[in-house]
């Protein structure tokens, strides 16, 4: 998998989080993982179609999700309800859209399939033999992951 994919998603996540919740995520070491899975509390899956095909998984811990929703809305919550999960899904959708705009600069034309939100552990069925890349990101309000499973479809 190419560095452009990871860099585009990292830059998009950094820009969106800085703008929306005034937090700058720092990237950790990339890990190669067997499939698209994560045991964090809130997972948002985005499908990618077009010149690149695959899935992106955003995985957030509960406390970080609630803290972001608090920064955005001013509301304190103790559980991830439909309001919080929908806000998280939309944020991941915006990050994904911005990442695809960045990827267009490398001549990849892609679209996003609307987000699916999973509260609780997430595991998808393996699509094929491709491995995914897990990008851990740390912030002052918690650590989250972006797992990228993309292959060229040109």
């Amino acid at each position: 998998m190419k560095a452009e994919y990871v860099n585009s998603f990292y830059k998009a996540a950094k820009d969106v989080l800085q703008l929306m919740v005034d937090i700058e995520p720092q990237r950790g070491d990339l890990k190669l993982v067997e499939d698209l899975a994560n045991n964090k509390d809130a997972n948002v899956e985005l499908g990618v179609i077009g010149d690149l095909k695959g899935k992106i998984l955003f995985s957030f811990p509960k406390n970080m999700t609630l803290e972001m929703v608090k920064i955005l809305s001013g509301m304190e919550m103790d559980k991830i309800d439909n309001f919080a999960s929908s806000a998280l899904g939309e944020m991941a959708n915006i990050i994904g859209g911005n990442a695809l705009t960045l990827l267009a600069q490398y001549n990849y034309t892609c679209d996003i399939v609307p987000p699916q939100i999973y509260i609780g552990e997430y595991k998808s069925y393996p699509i094929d033999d491709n491995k995914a890349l897990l990008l851990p990101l740390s912030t002052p309000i918690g650590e989250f992951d972006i797992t990228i499973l993309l292959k060229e479809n040109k």
Partner: protein
Amino acid sequence: MAFMKDYVIVHFNEEEAYQAEINYPELEAHKKAHEDFKEGINKYVKIFEEEGFNEDRIQEFGGKLMTWLIMHVGNMDQKIGEYVKSKGGQIQ
């Protein structure tokens, strides 16, 4: 929902007219963002018409609306201000 639908149309039309007036270079991208948003609102109008107003769906709509608006105003709308400033605030 009627307020949302009407207000969105009036506000977006006014904003797009202003952008056209100042020859804003990103007008088309901005119009596309407005169109996508209207589509999103209409999707929920249809859901509420079909399912009635249930709490889960209202929360879902609220979460999406809040996030979209913060991003749109904080990013795309700010760029209009930056453009006007870059022209010395004297755009005719």
